[in-house]
């Protein structure tokens, strides 16, 4: 079998006495949309942070396309093709939408130690920014300062920023968080388009969205992966029902 795009092996991360990530292993194949679900406090964000390099694991390893990245800083991982969105929107608030995306493109287009030429007039960067904004349906808001964008628009902009770095793997930390019904539907549609182009790890609470999108799902409870498989298998899994879904109407009524 081919080397998976992302391989996580026996990852452990503790906070004091609490084991937030407990021997987590998972693989994401190229082209796959892999969802990670779990109740609040299951350690999803802790896991994502170790994948992006914002947090170091105590043991275990993370590799991207066969390369060990366990201890690489965030900015180096990004250069290797790993992009992320944040659970709590994290953008440059006093920059325009286009500037936010153009900076992401700039990070992957030659050196940024250029001191004299006007970067906002670099056609390549602006075109890349506009293309990514167009992709998420935000082109008409390109020149608006982020602090004036709505929450939904900011979620979409997060995605555009991640796309602009032309990633191999996209880590999306609750992209639907705080979105209304119509906005969520738009986001699902968008992700359905994007998954054709890029592999995605999706952490999400919105169960209908997860079951509609995912090729495979890993269920995280108390820092451990208790089940991993395709949506049908997860829906049938007794452990999952018991440990996490409880009154699992959200899952059974869908699909």
């Amino acid at each position, binding site marked *: 079998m081919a080397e998976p795009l992302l391989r996580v092996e026996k990852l452990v991360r503790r906070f004091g006495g609490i084991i937030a990530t407990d021997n987590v292993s998972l693989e994401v194949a190229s082209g796959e949309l892999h969802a990670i679900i779990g109740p609040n406090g299951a350690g999803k964000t802790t896991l994502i942070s170790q994948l*992006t390099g*914002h947090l170091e694991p105590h043991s275990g390893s993370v590799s991207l396309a066969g390369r060990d990245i366990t201890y690489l*800083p*965030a*900015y180096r991982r*990004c*250069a290797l093709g790993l*992009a*992320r969105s*944040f659970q709590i929107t*994290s*953008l*440059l*608030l*006093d*920059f325009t939408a286009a*500037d936010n995306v153009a*900076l*992401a493109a*700039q*990070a*992957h287009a030659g*050196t*940024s*130690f*250029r*001191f*004299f*030429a*006007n*970067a*906002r007039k*670099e056609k390549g960067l602006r075109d890349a920014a506009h293309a990514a904004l167009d992709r998420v349906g935000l082109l008409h808001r390109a020149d608006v300062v982020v602090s004036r964008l709505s929450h939904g628009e900011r979620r979409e902009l997060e995605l555009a*920023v991640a796309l*602009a*770095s032309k990633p191999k793997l996209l880590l999306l930390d609750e992209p639907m968080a705080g979105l209304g019904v119509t906005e969520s539907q738009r986001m699902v549609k968008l992700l359905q388009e994007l998954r054709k182009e890029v592999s995605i790890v999706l952490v999400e609470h919105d169960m209908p969205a997860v079951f509609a999108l995912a090729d495979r799902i890993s269920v995280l409870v108390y820092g451990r992966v208790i089940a991993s498989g395709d949506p049908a298998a997860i829906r049938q899994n007794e452990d999952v029902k018991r440990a996490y879904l409880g009154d699992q109407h959200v899952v059974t009524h869908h699909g």
Partner: protein
Amino acid sequence: MKAFSVSKAVTALMLAGLVLLPLYSHLTGNIFILTLFTRIIILALAAASLNLIMGFGGMMSFGHAAYLGIGGYAVGMLAQEGVGSGFIQFPVALAASATYALVIGALSLRTRGVYFIMITLAFAQMAYYVASGLARYGGDDGLTVYKRSDFSGLINLGDRMQFYYLCLACLLGVIFLIWRIVNSRFGLVVQGLRSNEQRMQAIGFAAKRYQLVCFVISGTMCGLAGALLANNTDFVSPAVMYWTRSGDLMVMVILGGMGTLFGPIMGAVVFLLLEEFLSQITEYWALIMGPLLLLIVLFGRGGIMGALGRAGRG
């Protein structure tokens, strides 16, 4: 056509005033105003350099006066040792400032926020005490520069008007450079880091590298101000590095408008003119100056440039 803007008009007026000032001084025979404004321009240059890291880069350096001293001592010490050529003194002043900035920056940028403020302050105070200890170069009493930097006939720093225009040219040159830098790739990265460092790391920028380079550029620019200042006063002493002077520079930047191109000049002009005239009225001028600055900072968000911008929008 761009809309008329009050801040642009006031800036243009101020620059025109600075360019024409020697003419006024010449016609009226008022030499005092020329010397006063030479000093204002030099300190405006220092404030502009501080604004690059503080306003645009979000790095609150509380030790910027150290570069005034380093640039000044480079000129003074070389003059003392018989090296009078400006072609040597000025490059040495810039190189010394850059080196100091590189070392201090590399250490200070490991910290953020209040710690960054405190550590830059601590290093500047260290520089102050080192200068106080230089017995050969006057120690506490400072060092008289008997002869101004010699640019072998190219320009005569002993001539008040020529020296004034040299300082003004340096200031405008530095403002031009800062303008180019803040709109360049590098400048956008530095401003992005001010806005949201976590985000910038996530899209692939190694924060510290860019901040350090910016810190060095700023320090070098301020070193130039130091070299000019020593020539202006024919004297350099540890006092130019004292923390209150760093504080003055910060006040000028905040007063004029952080992160604006011409704000620091505006701030320096207003601050130093206030200081000058209030101190003529009363020896307790600081009692008036303090509350006045407090009011401006509290109620005039964005400093003078911010207030002018709001006035422009009506």
